């Protein structure tokens, strides 16, 4: 796979604050590249430097091996996190306006259908619902048949229906071979769509890779969860004791913590844990077993304290 966008030790300082700190990565053609991180991690700044909107303090961004220029401008599509459009224009007129800004534009009728804009084409820009607005902004980002599309938190604030609908649109874009760069707060979204992700915090990349690989790297355990009220204090005590014992055992490891009315046992060997629980005579009717997901990874890497 060839890289379409190359980011080399990018830094951005705002006065004393360092927003982005020597970040480097490559994005392959046709992939969906996810950018995750808590608020203020430097995602948007990094994306805006990649889009050529913000000047970096140092470092370079190369599109098809060349610095960002007119070629990039005509071949990229952008959906900003916050965008205002010209007032008093309808959706159709706005699309025509943006189509007029590119040497070549995609077939408007097809784009309108692809982004489901038919029902509100002649409404004023300012009177759209959240989902409609995001779909229109996506249509604008796609108006020049871009080879690379930047979507900065496109589904923030959407209801679940609108979000799933938007995911289908992104999958549709990806199926056309377009490269997509997606920043999001929804781990589910990244897991569903992204081929590769980076997790940023404090202006740096703290993890990078395919979601499945990252999970494998960081978590070899499964989570076994039992409602707290199924266990007596004695059980928990015993489990904790057992836990210490078991930890010395090389067969498998497990750790235990209580949270939100659940006892969670993180284990490398589910069979051993189950055996133990059954032997202890614990009711397993409400037992849950799940894999660690991106959210667990995210919280493990970025910590759980509240951000700005």
């Amino acid at each position, binding site marked *: 796979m060839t890289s379409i966008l190359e980011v080399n030790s990018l830094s951005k300082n705002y006065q004393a604050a360092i927003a982005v700190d020597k970040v480097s990565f490559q994005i392959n053609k046709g992939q969906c590249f996810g950018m995750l991180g808590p608020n203020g991690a430097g995602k948007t700044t990094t994306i805006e430097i990649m*889009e*050529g*909107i913000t000047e970096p303090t140092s470092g370079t961004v190369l599109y098809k091996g060349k610095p960002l220029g*007119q070629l990039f*401008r*005509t071949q*990229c599509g*952008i959906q*900003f996190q*916050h*965008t*205002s*459009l*010209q*007032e*008093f*224009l309808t959706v159709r*007129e*706005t699309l*025509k*306006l*943006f*189509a*007029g*800004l*590119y*040497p070549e534009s995609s077939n408007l009728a097809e784009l309108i259908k692809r982004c489901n804009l038919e029902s509100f084409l002649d409404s004023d820009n300012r009177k759209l619902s959240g989902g409609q607005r995001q779909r229109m902004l996506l249509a*604008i980002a796609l108006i*020049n048949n871009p080879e690379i599309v930047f979507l900065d938190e496109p589904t923030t604030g959407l209801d679940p229906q609108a979000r799933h609908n938007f995911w289908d649109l992104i999958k549709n874009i990806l199926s056309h071979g377009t490269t997509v760069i997606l920043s999001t707060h929804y781990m589910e979204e990244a897991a569903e769509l992204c081929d590769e992700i980076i997790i940023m915090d404090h202006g740096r990349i703290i993890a990078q890779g395919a979601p499945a690989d990252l999970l494998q790297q960081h978590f070899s355990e499964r989570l076994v969860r039992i409602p707290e009220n199924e266990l007596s204090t004695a059980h928990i005590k015993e489990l904790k004791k057992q836990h210490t014992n078991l930890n010395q055992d090389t067969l498998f490891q497990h750790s235990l913590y209580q949270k939100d009315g659940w006892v969670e046992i993180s284990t490398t060997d589910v069979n051993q844990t189950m055996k133990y629980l059954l032997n202890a005579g614990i009711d397993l009717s409400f037992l849950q077993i799940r894999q660690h997901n991106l959210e667990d990874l995210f919280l493990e890497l970025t910590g759980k304290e509240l951000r700005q």
Partner: protein
Amino acid sequence: MKRFLAILHARNLEFIRDRAALSWGLIFPTALMMGFALLFSNGDQELYKVGVAGELNHPFFQSRHIKFIPVEDLEKAVIKVERHQLDLLVAPDKLRYWVNSSSPAGYITEQLLKASGGEMLKANKVSGKEIRYIDWLIPGVLGMNMMFSALFGVGFVIVRYRKNGVLKRLRGTPLSATEFLMAQIFSRLLLIIFVSVIVYIGCDLILDFSMYGSYVNLFLVFTIGSLAMISLGLLIASRLKSDELAAGLTNAISIPMMLLSGVWFSLEGSPQWIMFISNLLPLTHVVDASRAIMLDGAGIIDVGHHIAAMLIMMLVFLFLGVKMFRWE
């Protein structure tokens, strides 16, 4: 060109649909001029004004309640008689006097002259419409209206676009700053011309004001003047992100400009430094040139220095405005 037209079209749609702003742009200047016409409709002369060329050696000059004004240039004084600015012009040395046959005050002063018993002077009848204050005011108010529309229209829209992120979105496209700014200028120019033509025709129907010059020249002066003032608006808006600051700055420029450009009263005889500042303001040249065309029938050569001044200002403002422009 395609990009320029796309932005121009969008901007035009925006202001045509912004009904409130558009109607205000039409109603305000019209109402202003109607108000002035009403205020000054009763005339403001309690004295008769008689121009005197040469010596005061005639019994007529003993008459009371007449203001005798010495004149140097006889030709210019005759034009003043035509415009009703002088009721009578007397040149005893030449044994002649000039009177406007359509002026009642001219008739009265002529009778006083005949009754004064001095040497008989030969009458020269001239004709011409009276120049009222409102005739003098019209070019000024039209120019002032252009100035407000140029400074607030262009400046504010760009600052608002910058503040709410429209500029940022446009920056993500191949559109260049120059293309964007040219579209803004051209769109505002079309609006100013449109509004000015309507206000001009509307006021003319009601007030029937004087227009002695060529409409082509007037159009040229107003167009170049508008461009100079729009460019100034652009320069003000080139970097600002706060509309409060933009409002303050625009007011700080537009209000002194309105007062120092001779819109409401003539600055003739003002101190040198005021004249100097006045000449640096584009509106001064718009008002002076359009007044010369409308009231004196001046040709394009007569107002050439004003046109040159406006063109230079336009180029300087434009150059700086494009150079300093920031999308964010």
